[in-house]
């Protein structure tokens, strides 16, 4: 991006850390789509995703004065929204499935019928995974957390994290069998 734009971001962040609501609204307008997409990936439905989005932005506003300008601002925000989503999931009892895989096919509404695989379809597929699989899969594959970090965040054994990932992959392979 052009220097003037990154400069804009810096001044927005500075204004926002001084409590400027207008600057915060601009930050919201720029980033809410990306952040909502993250929340949707982690949460079960749109209501929960909206809750996580709102809580996340409140945290951003409260914590923005701590942003050190050392890395990307978007990356910093992403982390907050992943954390917020995980926090919400942990509030409910996260159940790590140890039973056999479900060999059923997906319900018709979720199956991928056409020749293209776009973001919405892939997201829908990931959302169909059981919550435990999905959380680990999201963190490891898409958001790049290590098994060690995942086990810390979710308060689980590192091996559980690995096996959940393995199962998530197997499950996706079953659902995607026509695609291989």
């Amino acid at each position, binding site marked *: *991006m*052009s220097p003037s734009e990154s400069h804009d971001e810096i001044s927005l962040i500075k204004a926002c*850390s001084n*409590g400027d*609501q207008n600057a915060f*609204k601009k930050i*919201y307008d*720029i980033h*809410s*789509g*990306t*952040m*909502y*997409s993250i929340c949707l*990936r982690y949460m*079960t*439905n*749109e209501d929960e995703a*909206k809750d996580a*989005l*709102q809580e996340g*932005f*409140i945290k951003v*506003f*409260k*914590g923005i*004065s701590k942003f050190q300008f050392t890395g990307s601002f978007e990356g910093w925000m992403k982390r907050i929204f992943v*954390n917020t989503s995980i926090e919400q999931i*942990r*509030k*409910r*009892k996260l*159940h790590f*499935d140890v039973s056999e895989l479900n060999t*059923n*096919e997906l*319900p*018709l*509404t*979720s199956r991928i*019928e056409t*020749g*293209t695989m*776009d*973001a919405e379809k*892939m*997201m*829908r597929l*990931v*959302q*169909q995974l*059981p*919550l435990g699989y999905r959380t680990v899969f999201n963190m490891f*594959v*898409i958001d790049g957390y290590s098994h060690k970090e995942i086990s*810390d*965040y979710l308060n689980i054994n590192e091996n559980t994290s690995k096996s959940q990932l393995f199962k998530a*992959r197997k499950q996706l392979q079953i659902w*995607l069998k026509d695609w*291989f």
Partner: protein
Amino acid sequence: MPKFNDISDFEQLLKEQMSGHSTPPPADAWTAISSSTAQVGGIINSLSTYLNASVTLVKTGLIAGSIVALSTVSYFSLINSTDIPNNKHENIDSIQNANSNDSRPTFETVESSDNETKSPTQNTPSGGIHSKKTNHTSAVSSPVTSDTSSPAPKKYTNQPSKIIENKGGNEFRITATNYNPCVGETVILKSSEKGDWFLNETKIASNTAVYNVQCRATGSYVYYFKTPDRNVHTTLNISEFNGNIVKEQLEDGHYSFSLSNQKLIANWSINGKLYSTNAPFIRIALETVGKHQIKAVVINHPCAKPLTFDVQIAPIGHFEAINIFTVGNDGLNDTYRVKISGYDSFSIQIFNSNSNLVFSTLDPEEGWDGRINNIGIECPQGEYFARVSYKLKGELPQLKNIKLTLLRP
């Protein structure tokens, strides 16, 4: 149909798709945020130390702490929010079932109650649509699973059930999983009772409460549901996404990128970074030499796919240096200068073999005539070093050390 070699192909594509993926949040999401932050805003200004502490608390809260089991409550509310089923016993069974498998999608845990769904009869009506036998009865036959089984597609199906008629106290509903589907999608039509389904005049299924529509072609299709008592209809508007990004270079050298269909708006990103949201077009100065990817994620079409457009920016500037010059008025390399065009910045410094500066300028048109700073004493023949630093438009800054030879006739 594209194929994946293995799951990692899928994961790679997923990661790419998700990295810049953006879904516009609900319009009312901001309201709650602004009201809470307006309150803390005042505190921030005065008590930043307090806030620093609270941020730390949030972080610790993520890692520490035990988990409160709220699954029963949350699932109960989830199920309560769905259709009210006709059969109470079935409903209770399903709730228990859902609770015992709390993290799994409900469709896999509920036993199929096949009492309702026979396979629809196979007819091929006109209009490019034909019926498809359902082999996923559990997904469509149980009233509970109809909504809870697939939380994700809710986005596409958030239209409320259409209450078409109200006879004898029983609510009669006819619903579609999506009233504005895309070509290629399968839509499930459901009614509260069994009956016959028609597309225009053609009977497409008889004595069933569920009918699957495979959307093959665009258009509005009217589906009639008929029983001896009722004759109701619902309309599916099947659409298809056709659009692409159009590039235009403006007089001032800026580029404009717009969508071929002017009714569409999109979130735009350039090289993976979000640039503009909810915009029908963007205007940008692209100077950096190389390939740029413009991406538009259309947000007001149900069938939209992300569009991309690659722009190649060719170099504008040019730099060339000679390494020998002869002082004298013979008209050939009388002064030392480099050839540069299309640049943002330029400087040259010339040193003699003892590393003493003999000439410097910021103007590439001004050459060195062999005297110290072009006014002082004449420098002897021999080797000199020019340090040229410049930046051509759209390119990275360069620093070049050039060895040059001064010759005198």
